[in-house]
């Protein structure tokens, strides 16, 4: 059967999520970058 899935976003690895903390309702972006 033909693959019917078109990937639009591959997603984010947990390692990357670990760097993306939320601060004050996400009002402070990229605080530690």
């Amino acid at each position: 059967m033909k693959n019917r899935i078109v990937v639009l976003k591959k997603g984010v690895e947990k390692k990357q999520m670990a760097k993306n903390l939320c601060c004050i309702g996400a009002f402070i972006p990229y605080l530690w970058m």
Partner: protein
Amino acid sequence: MKLARYSKIYPLPEDPESVILFSTKRASAVLVPKGLLADIEAGRLSGEEQAELAELGLLARSDEEEWQELLSFIQDLNALDRSMKFIVVLNLDCNLACHYCFEGVRKGKHYLSDEVAGRFIDFVKTRDYAGKDEIRIAFYGGEPLLSLDRIAGISEQIKTFAEGRGMRYGFSLVTNGVLLTPRAVKRLQPVGLRSAKVTLDGPKEVHDAFRPFRNGSGSFDAILRNVEEVSGLIRIQIGGNFTQDNYRQFPRLLDLLAERGLGPERIAAVKFDPVVHESSEFALPDFRDGCDSLDEPWVAEAAVLLREEVLKRGYQTPKIMPSPCMMEYDGSFVVNYDSVLYKCPGLIGRQDCRAGDLLNGPGECRLTHGLDDWKNDECLACAYLPLCFGGCKYLKLVREGTMRGVNCQKTYLDRVLAELVAQDIRYGL
């Protein structure tokens, strides 16, 4: 296998026969024919399709397995996080007099002393660095650049300590930008300055009305001049705080940035957020605007509109993905100028919200901060849980006077998530 509980199905107006599946725990998205949804439930996927959807976090064996995954999600991120992070509130003084400042009446000529600086450095040196390869500090205020010598002094010592242990050290500034001159940047770069978040509240006349100098004159020109001069030296992130009355004017700021040569190649990220109305205990007495909840419909409208304006001009902005609250990170603390530890900058000065101090070390605060309160049947059943984990505790405290319980974001995410995901796809985030 079944469709993952932590996923959303969004229709595609231009293609009624297809839908978008978005995984809230992996931030992945696929386009599939509607018929594929029934095939998932009936077990009629091909091996290739099943493997692909499972890899993207869009299929699950059972609710129980997904619940267990979510219950250990934050623990997993803690284990993967290789950096030790601190926010240091160097002072509560400021050279501006922003009408809405959330630090409000907490402000004053309060500065971190030599003694507290020494305690902080000792505190940093005595943390457990197993699995860590980096120390990161965000210097915060008040206005951190009023304490430039202190930043340099602390950084020199921590940089030496970190590098002596084979770790990296770097810091960022959350600054109003007035003192972010090339001279200041060049002084701080050798001791670890990497980036600065500067606030511009819309075009000049709006910004100057909300963020004047203490003598009442506008600060916009001075800040923009500094941003122009230092954006080639360090990463500059532009933030801005909008109200219900002024958010529609913010795109004009983006146009002005482009006119001044501050396009995406010179600005690392842009993100605008609503002004928070602090609780009456701390709010400035003359400011009654702002919001204490994302549930207000105008907040959703503004968030989507301004994010689109940012993205269509090519600027980066945070993509939609699980971003747990900094309170959830084991080693992460806000260090106030007076030696008290907190888990969020919004909590400084609140007696009941302390999380220890530099002399005695961190204290237990999971219970008082309600950090496990999302571990209930209703939240575990919610597709938004990976994007929420109980919501912003600071906003809950401001609105309800307690951090216990959850700050449910369902109403807000119902309004905005489909469009935010569409933006991420459209702009390749």
